[in-house]
C-alpha cells in the first residue's frame, strides 16, 4: 500500500509539474487582463525544440533554456496581436495554438518516436528523500521539482500580493483605465507578463519532454495546455492554489497510470479520459456547489478586454 502510494505521488508530482508551470504562467497573463489561449501551442513548440536541442547539444539545461526562449518568442507574437494591436484575444490565442501545433509537428517530423537520450537525471537529496511517501516524490526525482512546486509559486505569490509592483499588476487586470491614470504603463505591463507566461508555457513543454515523457510525438501535449487554462479558473487566479491544483491533477493522471499498471478491468482509453473528465468536473462542480465562491474566485474584471486609452 505504501509502495503504491509512494509511486502514485511520485507520478503525480512528475505529471503535475507540466501543468503547474503552464498554469502559473497563465495566471501571470490573466492577472494583467489577457487570456492566452495559445498555451497548448506554445507547450508543443517548447517540447519539440527541447528535443531538437538536446539531440544536438546533449545538455538538458540548454534544451530547457531554448524551450523557454521559444515560448517567450511565441508569447511575444501572441502579445503583439492581442496586446499591441489589441486584436481579439480569443482569435489570437487560437491562432497561436494552431501555429504552435502545426509548426511543432513540422519541425519534429524527423525526431518523432525517437527516445530523448539526454534528460534531467535523478537527483536524490539526502535525508529529505528518505521521508516516507512524500520524500521520494518531492526530493528523489529531478532537480526541477522544488523550483516548480515551491520556489516559483511562492515568488509569484510574493510579488503579486506583497509588493507595489504586484498591486500595479493586478490593477492593470482589474481596471486598466484607473491604472493608466495612476501612471502604470498598461500596455508594457500586459506585453511583458504575457511574454513571461509564454516563456513558462515553453518551459512546461521542455519539462514534459526532458523529464516526464522523454520522446517527441505529434499530439503529445494532448490538451495539457487547455487543462492548465482550466486549472487557472479553478484556482481563482491564485499562484499557490494553482500549483496545488496542478498536483491534485497530477494525481488524477497518476490514477490512470496505476489503473493500467495493475490491469484494472477498465479499458486504457477510458482511463486516459480521466484527466479531461476530471478537469470538466473541476471547473463545473465548485461553481454549482458553492455559489458564494463565485465572487471570491472571480476573474480579473478586465480579463480579455483590450484597453483603449482614447475611447470614451
Amino acid at each position, binding site marked *: 500500500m505504501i509502495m503504491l502510494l509512494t509511486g502514485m505521488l511520485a507520478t503525480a508530482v512528475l505529471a503535475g509539474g507540466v501543468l503547474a508551470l503552464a498554469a502559473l504562467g497563465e495566471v501571470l497573463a490573466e492577472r494583467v487582463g489577457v487570456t492566452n489561449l495559445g498555451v497548448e501551442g506554445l507547450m508543443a513548440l517548447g517540447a519539440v525544440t527541447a528535443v531538437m536541442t538536446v539531440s544536438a547539444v546533449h545538455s538538458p539545461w540548454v534544451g530547457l533554456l531554448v524551450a523557454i526562449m521559444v515560448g517567450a518568442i511565441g508569447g511575444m507574437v501572441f502579445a503583439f496581436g492581442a496586446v499591441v494591436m489589441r486584436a481579439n484575444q480569443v*482569435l489570437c490565442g487560437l*491562432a497561436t495554438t494552431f*501555429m*504552435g501545433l502545426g509548426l511543432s*509537428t513540422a519541425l519534429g517530423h524527423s525526431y518523432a518516436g525517437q527516445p530523448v537520450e539526454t534528460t534531467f537525471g535523478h537527483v536524490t537529496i539526502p535525508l529529505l528523500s528518505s521521508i516516507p511517501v512524500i520524500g521520494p516524490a518531492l526530493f528523489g526525482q529531478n532537480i526541477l521539482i522544488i523550483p516548480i512546486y515551491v520556489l516559483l509559486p511562492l515568488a509569484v505569490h510574493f510579488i503579486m500580493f506583497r509588493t507595489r509592483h504586484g498591486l500595479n499588476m493586478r490593477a492593470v487586470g482589474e481596471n486598466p483605465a484607473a491604472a493608466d491614470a495612476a501612471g502604470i504603463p498598461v500596455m508594457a505591463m500586459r506585453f511583458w507578463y504575457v511574454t513571461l507566461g509564454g516563456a513558462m508555457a515553453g518551459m512546461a513543454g521542455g519539462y514534459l519532454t526532458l523529464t516526464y515523457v522523454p520522446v517527441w510525438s505529434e499530439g503529445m501535449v494532448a*490538451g495539457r495546455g487547455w487543462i492548465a487554462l482550466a486549472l487557472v479558473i479553478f484556482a481563482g487566479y491564485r499562484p499557490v492554489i494553482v500549483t496545488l491544483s496542478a498536483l491534485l491533477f497530477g494525481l488524477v493522471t497518476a490514477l490512470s497510470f496505476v489503473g493500467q499498471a495493475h490491469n484494472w478491468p477498465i479499458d486504457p482509453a477510458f482511463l486516459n479520459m480521466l484527466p*479531461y473528465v476530471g*478537469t470538466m468536473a473541476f471547473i463545473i462542480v465548485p461553481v*454549482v456547489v458553492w455559489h458564494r465562491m463565485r465572487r471570491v474566485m472571480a476573474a480579473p474584471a478586465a480579463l480579455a478586454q483590450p484597453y483603449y486609452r482614447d475611447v470614451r
Partner: protein
Amino acid sequence: MATRAFQRLPTAPAGRILALRLVAIVVSLCIIAGVLALSGHSPVMLAELILRSTLGSRFGLEDLALFMCPLLLTGAAVTVCGTIGLWNIGAEGQFYAGAIAATGVALGLHGPVLVMLPLMTIAGILGGMAWITVPTLARAYAGVNEIITTLLLNFIASLLTYYLTTGPWRDRISGAQVSTRRLSVSIPEMWGIVHWGFPVAIVIVVGLALVLSRTRWGYEIRIGGANPEAARYAGIPVRLRIISVMLLSGGLAGLAGMFEVAGTVHRLQGGMANNFGYLGIVVAVLARGSCLNVIPAALLMALILDSGIVMQTQQLSASVILAITGLILFMIAIGDELAHYRPVATTPAKGKAS
C-alpha cells in the same frame, strides 16, 4: 499644421474589413512564401502546382467539394453559437459524437437505405447534441466558461473513437487499423465522388441564415448576443435561448460527422475529424457572424486544405496546413481590429477652437 491621428470606431465598415482582410491574407502568403523559399522550395512553382491541381482539375474540384461539406456545417455550428456571443470550440468532439452515433446505427440495424439514412442522420444530430449538453447546461445555469468545457470534450470524443475502432467495433474483416468495417449504407453520389450531403449542407446553411434573420427566435438570439442585459429586460428568456442555440450548434457539428462517415469515409476511423471542428472556428471567424458568408469562407478553407494534399506530395508535412491556417487567422484578427480605425485630421488647440 494639421497632424494626422487615428480614431477608433465602435463598428468597422464592411468595405474596410474586406480590404484589410485581403491585405492580411497577402501578408500571410508572403510570410509563407518566404519560409518556403528559405527551406529550399520554390514558392512560385508550388503555387502553380497547387492552382493546377485544385481548381484546374476535376479531382481537385471534387476534393474541394468534399472538404467544403463538413466545413460548411462546422462553420455554421460555430457561427450560430457566436450569434449569442458564445464560442463552441468543441465542434471537433461533436463531429466525432455524430459520426459515432451514425456508425452505431449503421452497424446495429439493418434495413433499406431509405430508412437507414434518415435514422443515421437523426442519430448523428442527436449524438452532436448529446456531446454539447454538459457544456450547455454548465454555461446556462452556472455560467461556466464554455470555451474550455467544449474543448476538453474533444479529447474525450477522440479517445472514445479510438476505443471503439480498436475495440468493440474494430474491423474484423480486412483488419484495417483504428477503423470499423466499411458501412453498408452510404449517401448516394451526385457528381464524381461528391455525395448529396454537399448540396444538403448548402441548403442548411442558407436555411439557417433565413431563420436567424427572419424569425422571432433568430431576432431574440441576436439581441441576446449583442446585449444580454437588454434582452433580459425585454423579456427574452436568454437562458433558454442559450440552451437552444448551443444544442443546435452541437447538432450541426454532429450532422457534419454523420455526412463524413456516410458520404466520404464510409467507416468510422480514428483521426477522421481531420481538424474540421477546429477549422470550423476559422470558417466562422471569416464569415463574421453571417451564415451566408459561411459558404465563401468554407470555400476558402477548403482551398487551403486542398492545397495541403499537394504540399504533402512535395515532402511538406500535412501539419504545415494547420500552421498556415493559424497564421492567416492571426493576421485576419489583427486586420479586423485595424479596420476599426479611421484617420482624422486634428489641429492643435489654439485657445479659441471653433
